[in-house]
């Protein structure tokens, strides 16, 4: 290999951290000798960093419910409905995005002024209180998950769904009942390998209809994403940064929605056979009103 020929591709690969090990030492030596090469690597790295600053904030935006739904069930019926109603949904998507963008701005304001809504603030405090507890963070441990689900369901008067977050590295620790303002609140806690703890809290809150939006608040180092669907208000709290916490929130939301739709207890994603009976109406306004029978998805 010619040691003196450093190509444009070498420069790019080095800047992108993709230069094969066998070539790396060679290129680095050449760069050490030639400041103009070093400057090109630095330029590309600065550009990459600016690109990430520009495009990473998009990841924290609320995803329109119709897309979350499209990521959940393989459902032939739903698809044909979407196809027929396409222009209407295109308009709806624009509206949703407008609202979502507005909420993103609102999230900033909430975060800066430190005045999240009561529910989010309470969720953050409750999270801080119990997640710091080493010996008894929960009342019922994960090994009694079925009992936990029954207990929480009975006390809330609403079928509980405990999401399974193993695929994103968070294992269930357990759960407890906590006092809410007017109504009891269910709490389940998760922990990852780094001992970071997340809590998901929810309470029955009669829906206001309309779109589900993820909203963000930040309280004493605890980030909270909270949202309201037709039946419950949810808050996901934890020490993760906003982007990661939102990703977890999407997973939680998707699983709860899937569990509420699943007609059969226990089994994961809904029937995928093309002819599978599917009567649930997709779309912003239509969420099942029938009490779900399924317990845990995944």
């Amino acid at each position, binding site marked *: 290999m010619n040691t003196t020929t450093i190509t*444009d*591709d070498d420069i*790019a*690969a080095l800047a*992108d*951290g*993709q230069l094969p090990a066998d070539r790396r030492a060679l290129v680095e030596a050449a760069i050490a000798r030639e400041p103009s090469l070093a400057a090109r690597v630095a*330029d*590309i790295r600065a*550009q*990459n960093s*600016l*690109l*990430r*600053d*520009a*495009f*990473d*904030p*998009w*990841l*924290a*935006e609320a*995803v*329109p419910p*119709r*897309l*979350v739904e*499209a*990521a*959940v069930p*393989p459902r032939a019926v739903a698809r044909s409905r*979407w196809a027929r109603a*396409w222009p209407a949904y*295109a308009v709806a*998507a*624009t509206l949703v*995005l407008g609202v979502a*963008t507005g909420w993103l*701005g609102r999230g*900033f304001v909430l975060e800066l002024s430190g005045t999240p809504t009561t529910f989010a603030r309470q969720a953050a405090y409750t999270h801080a209180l119990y997640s710091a507890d080493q010996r008894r963070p929960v009342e019922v441990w994960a090994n009694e998950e079925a009992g936990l689900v029954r207990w929480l369901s009975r006390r809330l008067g609403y079928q509980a769904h405990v999401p399974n*977050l193993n*695929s*994103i590295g968070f294992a269930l620790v357990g759960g407890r009942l906590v006092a809410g303002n007017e109504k009891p609140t269910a709490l389940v806690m998760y922990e990852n390998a780094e001992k970071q703890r997340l809590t998901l809290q929810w309470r029955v809150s009669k829906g206001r209809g309309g779109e589900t939006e993820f909203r963000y608040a930040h309280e004493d180092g605890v980030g909270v994403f909270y949202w309201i669907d037709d039946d419950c208000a949810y808050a996901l709290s934890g020490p993760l940064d906003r*982007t990661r916490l*939102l*990703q977890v929130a*999407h*997973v939680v*939301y*998707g*699983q709860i929605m*899937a569990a509420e739709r699943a007609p059969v207890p226990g089994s*994961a*994603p*809904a*029937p*995928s*056979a093309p002819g599978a009976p599917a009567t649930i109406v997709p779309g912003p306004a239509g969420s099942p009103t029938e009490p779900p029978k399924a317990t845990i998805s*995944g």
Partner: protein
Amino acid sequence: MTDAPLPQPDLVAALPRLRRYARVLTGDSARADDLVQETLARGWEKRRLWQAGTDLRAWLFTIMHNVFVNQRAQSHRDAQTVSLDAATEAGGESWHVPVPPQQFVRVEVVEMIAHVGRLPADQRETLLLAAVEEMKYEEIAQVLSVPVGTVMSRLSRAREKLRRMADGEEAPSLKRVK
């Protein structure tokens, strides 16, 4: 049990990245979400082709790229939409993506979003996958169905153009007319 092998939580978790890729491709938020929806529908249709353990993100990006290219080819055949699409390809004209509120971001960031919008679509997507998604060049080549050499040359051209735009060598209003 193996009837629906797509890992649903991962699919939901991939949504923000799918939307971002779609926005960079289409340059338009509403069209981007339609593209994401179509991509997810295709993903479910083709779910048997996905191999467990491989990168779901790359697999979905591949589908999205193909859907986008096919849609564009189709609309080129439709005389009524040619002008719109040509504008997208030249970049800039139909770049309606959100920019964070000014007070929260640096000027360079706002400018960068605008500059990326003036790149041709193929350079935009290559740049996104390499610099922002930090995918391996070989993976990008697979997603875009082009040789690795093409990935490298697009990347190089995109970076050079961005550099020139940042230096003011390429006037912001410059638009190549076909």
